[in-house]
């Protein structure tokens, strides 16, 4: 608890005022304790970080077959994700595709999109990874 003695006194007087005739010592104590808990709770609860903004890199690979690009892009557009860049290669029977996707307009969080894409990956029998762009920027750009 961070509240000073003076603050606690102030809160106690407020509680007595609000409680009026009902102000038994127990009731006051309970009210003050609740108030302090709420306040210290506010002080230490971190704000949720801005996790959904920005771009992610989608990497997918597996055995080539019809419908992979369609499956992936359809799911992305349904989630309001904007494909900003796309690079795709076939190496032998192997399909690889890398996309830079802006998910800031999506109503879903990265985690939900990841789960959804993993499901689609399973259907298409390919691997799909979504990672925040920063990790690539930090590793490969100084």
């Amino acid at each position, binding site marked *: 608890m961070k509240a000073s003695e003076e603050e606690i006194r102030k809160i106690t007087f407020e509680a007595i005022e609000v409680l009026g005739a009902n102000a038994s010592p127990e009731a006051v104590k309970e009210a003050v304790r609740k108030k302090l808990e709420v306040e210290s709770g506010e002080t230490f609860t971190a704000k949720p970080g801005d*996790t959904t903004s920005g771009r992610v890199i989608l990497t997918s690979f597996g055995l080539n077959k019809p419908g992979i690009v369609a499956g992936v892009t359809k799911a992305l557009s349904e989630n309001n994700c904007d494909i900003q*860049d796309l690079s795709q290669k076939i190496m032998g029977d192997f399909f690889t595709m890398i996309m830079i996707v802006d998910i800031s307009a999506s109503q879903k969080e990265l985690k939900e999109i990841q789960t959804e894409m993993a499901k689609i990956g399973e259907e298409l029998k390919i691997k799909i990874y979504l990672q925040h762009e920063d990790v690539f920027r930090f*590793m490969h750009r100084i």
Partner: protein
Amino acid sequence: MPYEFEEILETIRMTEIEHFDIRTVTLGISLRDCHDRNLEVTKQKIYDKILRYGKNHVKFAKEVESQYGISIANKRVSLTPISIPFDAFRFEEYIEIAKILEKAAEEIEVDYIAGYSALVQKGMTNGERELIKSIPFALAETKRVCSSVNVASTKAGINMDAVLMMSDVIKLTAEKTKDKDSIGCAKLVVFANAVEDNPFVAGAFHGISEPEVVLNVGISGPGVVLDAIKEAGKVDLQQLSEVIKKTIFKITRAGELIGRKVADKNEIPFGIVDISLAPTPAEGDSIADILKAMGVEDVGAPGTTAALAMLNDAVKKAGLMASSSVGGLSGAFIPVSEDQGMISAVQAGHLSLEKLEAMTAVCSVGLDMIAIPGDTSSSTIAGVIADECAIGVINDKTTAVRIIPAYGKKVGEFVDYGGLLGKAPIMEVRTLSSEKFVGRGGKIPAPSRSLTN
């Protein structure tokens, strides 16, 4: 595209195939304001404070994990060495504190809570003596609490009285936890030149000059380095050093990013990145395999120490370039039980305790997770600790001993803890006596290099 195809695939390969992970995000919390002369009040203060700062630690770490696709293997807490704020307490009270630490750790779901520690390189207060005596009992009654004691430093020399005391503590800890292969000893480290911001357990503690609360991150990835060395093929050692540095540079950058994000979410300051190649029992996640890929037939072959020295140095150099917040131990760890390659080398008779000792002179820590016969005398253990301290003190580096005199077990048997702690073959220890030497007690004076002013 702003990134090359190969760059993206490299990152994916590191995170998905080569076991690159953030080994630990460790929340350091100061307990210096938690003392009260009433034990119950003290316990409540400790519990409240750990919960206040730590309640979202695991949750936030998991969020960052999925956001960046890099796994964070462990979420931990380190504390002010318990003997400092609670110096007025005695034996039983310290054990009570250990129990409340366990309870808090369980509540916030961290796997280890470290800092049941004392810094006694120059001498002991009464409280420190009591804490050290309580260690076997505290470790026997808890699962998550880790303990460390610093008994030597380059500035102060080696406190041989403390070394002797610690060897008895280690023996008793082994006995107290004999039902679980003396697991207590796996959570107890004896240090020379301990660092204040080490995020790795069991030796982590929140140093006396650290802020109120801080987030330190420990990065690992032997698998990534191993594959890079294999890929490099037949190149000379200078080029090989470059390969290691480039790889480490990249994973340090990624690690710092992750650490800062977890710290931001917790709204606490970011401390340091500790880039330490720490093996796990998983296949390919081995320092021994790296040394073998560098060219020695097996760990223990002549040349092993040189290979390890080069690896350790390359890791440090790359870490320093990649981040201005490099700290902790930063280098290569060579625990035996946690590294499949080390275990095989011991079993094959290629790696002895003496060779390991030489290797610790150039690696980042020391004799780590080594099981020895349960009937090893405490004076012999004291001799081993003193040797290791001497290496640290003279070379101005951190060294540590985490040794397990496995109760009731002999050479050829195993202790098996599962998980990250792995399984250790019991190693042979010389039975030549060091009793008269260590029994003299007192202190080994600080070396001439302590006078740098």
